[in-house]
């Protein structure tokens, strides 16, 4: 049965909202000062609402991570622009690694030494819980490919 893991990354969402908020903030500097002073609360409220709405759209389009897996394959989708799919049989071993930013990943190694990271911390998964499950899937895929 296919498992889908997706969690909202608040850091990613905040980044997306900030990206939308900044140009709006810059626009207010060019607006007449009397207008800004008179409608300051409305401007701030509109900026925040627009930032929230467009930031969410931006986040879903570029940053939202979705990890989907079943017994044979898995895929990692980032937003709607990037999707990578793999078969468990492509990999032979795994490790738990910490990235340069101190985030845990599950690192999968191919037989020729290539590697691929599943960003478990960004997906808010416990790497030590997921490791035995991924180990089982790798062992199963390896046995199936031997037959």
């Amino acid at each position, binding site marked *: 049965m296919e498992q889908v893991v997706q969690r909202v990354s608040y850091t990613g969402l905040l980044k997306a909202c900030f990206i939308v908020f900044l140009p709006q903030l810059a626009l207010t500097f060019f607006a007449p000062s009397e207008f800004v002073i008179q409608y300051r609360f409305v401007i701030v409220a509109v900026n925040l609402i627009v930032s929230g709405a467009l930031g969410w759209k931006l986040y879903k389009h570029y940053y939202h991570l979705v990890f989907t897996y079943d017994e044979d394959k898995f895929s990692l989708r980032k937003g709607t622009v990037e999707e990578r799919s793999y078969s468990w049989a492509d990999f032979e*071993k*795994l*490790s*738990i*690694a*910490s990235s*340069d930013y101190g985030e845990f990943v599950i*690192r999968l190694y191919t037989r020729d030494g290539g590697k691929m990271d599943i960003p478990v911390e960004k997906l808010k998964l416990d790497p030590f819980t997921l*490791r035995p499950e991924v*180990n089982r899937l790798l062992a199963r895929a390896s046995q199936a490919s031997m037959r």
Partner: protein
Amino acid sequence: MKGKARWLANFNESFENYRVNDVTFDIFIHGNTRVKGFLLSRFFSYIANPAYEVGCYLYASERRLNRSILRKIVPTTKSSMDANEMKWCWLIMIADQIDNEVKDLIEKISDRGLAAIAVETHTGMITNSKNFLGRQARKFVKV
């Protein structure tokens, strides 16, 4: 894991049931002696610590650790060290019983980059290689 910890290196990757040739280590962790922090810690590490790749292999067995097993484990560890370009390495072997001959052999390991430590769970006795890394490692292995 229980007890106090002592900083050895910045270990950033861990494997379970790590297979090298025909030896399966229960745990293998590797890292670097240079820490990756923010500005100050990164700068301090850059001037004070060497940038050595290091690793720690753990081999545990409920069987008796004898000469033939040791003769497989030590060369395998060394070949893995070379393959991973590691400068220092800790090899910890835990077994229910360890032959006296094996203890002698462990003490005689003279490779400067390899610290070998054997822990006999039956008696709680710890044997280490007499090289510098081995003597240092003996201080942090407690049973």
